[in-house]
């Protein structure tokens, strides 16, 4: 895809374009890593898009209207999303709700809260420093890309090198065996949903920082991007399989594709169809590669 786009439109290879594209998909990647952990356990989280929006609203609200320090506002934004994640986990564990249903409900509640808090109006008049995370650079690289890289390393180590990480995979492979072997799967479920929502919230704050505005409608449909990134990256929706690197690549495919369609001046009306075709092709190729190995 990159080769074809670069051949057809040299502007693709401009440093500013590559960095801009990477910055665009970094939010998808960060939220995708959160969703990855949930999908590895065999669950799903449809509320990611709504907590993404809620975190942006809460953090900009705290900063703009209550005059709180930027870093505290951002932490509160992440906490607001994490609370919803914990709620999802609790409902799945104690109310025995299927994750699809639990997160469908919280998706609506979180979105509703966005609208109630803002009365539908975007939150603006933010201090300049708020925009550093979304618009600032370090060593010429946008901060959003640094955040994506750091989170990727952190969670790759967490999932692959820690006991808890291995238990998450084990649970996804066979939840009952994991439970019988003495592992507290209830705590694990609550943990992954909380972490997942926290990462989705952080992605929302990065976007609010990039735009300089907390929008109640931010993240509408974003959960599909995050889930698509995870699935394209090779994770299995039935659980037990997936990787942080795969999720980053999945997010990159989505980001590069969107960039390519604009650079190649593809008719806007065709772009969604082409996105769908490429997603199916990418996952099919991965499935064939896996079955070839087996």
């Amino acid at each position, binding site marked *: 895809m990159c080769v074809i786009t670069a051949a057809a439109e040299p502007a693709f290879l401009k440093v500013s374009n590559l960095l801009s594209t990477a910055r665009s998909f970094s939010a998808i990647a960060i939220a995708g890593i959160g969703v990855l952990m949930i999908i590895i356990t065999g669950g799903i989280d449809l509320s990611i898009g709504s907590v993404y929006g809620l975190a942006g609203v809460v953090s900009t609200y705290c900063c703009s209207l209550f005059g709180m320090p930027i870093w505290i506002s951002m932490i509160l934004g992440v906490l607001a999303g994490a609370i919803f994640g914990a709620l999802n986990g609790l409902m799945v564990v104690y109310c025995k709700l299927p994750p699809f249903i639990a997160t469908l409900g919280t998706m609506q509640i979180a979105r509703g809260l966005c609208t109630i808090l803002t009365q539908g109006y975007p939150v603006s008049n933010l201090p300049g420093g708020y925009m550093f995370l979304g618009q600032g650079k370090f060593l010429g690289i946008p901060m959003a890309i640094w955040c994506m890289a750091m989170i990727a390393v952190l969670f790759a180590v967490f999932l692959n090198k820690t006991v808890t990480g291995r238990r998450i995979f084990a649970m996804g492979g066979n939840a009952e065996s994991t439970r019988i072997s003495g592992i507290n799967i209830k705590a694990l479920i609550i943990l992954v949903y909380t972490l997942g929502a926290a990462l989705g919230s952080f992605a929302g704050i990065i976007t609010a920082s990039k735009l300089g505005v907390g929008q109640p409608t*931010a993240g509408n449909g974003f959960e599909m991007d995050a889930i698509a990134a995870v699935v394209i990256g090779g994770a299995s929706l039935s659980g037990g399989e997936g990787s942080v690197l795969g999720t980053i690549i999945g997010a990159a495919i989505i980001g590069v594709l969107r960039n390519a369609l604009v650079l190649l001046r593809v008719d806007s009306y065709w772009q969604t169809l082409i996105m769908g075709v490429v997603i199916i092709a990418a996952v099919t190729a991965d499935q064939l590669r896996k079955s070839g190995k087996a």
Partner: protein
Amino acid sequence: MKKTLCVLLALVLLLFCACSASTKTAEPAGTTAASAGETAAKSNKDITIAVIGQQTGNVVFLPAQAGAEAAGKELGIKVDWQSPIRAEAELQNEIMNNLIDLGVDGIAISCTTGDALKDVINRAVDSGIKVSCYDVDSPESKRLFYAGTENYKAGYTCGEYMVKLFKDAGLDKVRVAQLEGIPGANDIEARKKGFADAIKGTNIEVVYSYPCNDDVDKAIEGVEAYTRASGDEIDAWFMAGGWPYCVAPDAMPEVNAWKLANPNHKVVTVDIFPDTTPAFFKMGVLDVAVGQNFHEMGYQSVKTLYDLVQGKALNAPVDQTIGAPFINTGVQIATSEDYKEVMGIQ
């Protein structure tokens, strides 16, 4: 091994980008690093003007696209129409960044949220691209001009007609329900303010406002549900945007029945859709429509941006309210009495 290679490749790319980004100065827009004077000599076939709508599915942008492409054809330049799948500032922001890197000569954008797009508009302007807004403005940005409806006046006109419609109704109080779009959007806020100012001091009052976020389905659902629940508590609807009128009248049975049940129930809307609005007038379920000219917005945006790209002076007066040169694309007013004549229907 493969994973290690991928990570190493990513690190190398990152390092390359970091070195390039920190040593290079900002790249000017356009296919060559030309000065402003040299840009004036650019051949028409090398000029690209991008026009960005709010959402692929929003029908009001179809005439804007047609107008933009007509201007492009007349001038012999490339017009690149871009529109996100969802009316989200983040998606428009992405498109803008892509167009900046592509080095287009001009961009005309209808902003979903003006504030959220001001930084990327400024980035485009700073890189040498001529940028304008149409339909919905970004007043805090460095856009060179705004082409669109004088929205305050459009709303005020709706208010004036509402006053006229109820002049002889003999009601103590006229209760108006209001349909709006994306809260905070400059165009809608200006129309609401205009309407509110026109009805000030009269017995007309807005008692309810419903934001549909520019979604036609949501707009219809909202007005139908409210009319069903509270139809006897309102006397009129003011639609600050014509979303419910993009479709056939059959889509709003509740509102239509409410309107026809009482001659003192009135409906005033912004926007005229040539294909669907006449049916509403014919059925007697619409009183006044104040139409915008989206075709002209697209057309004038491209023509004016082209002039700027070619180094010509901007020929539009500065509007004090908007704070920038303003190209007024005008309104068309149709009532239930004269809609055929106004809309050119036999």
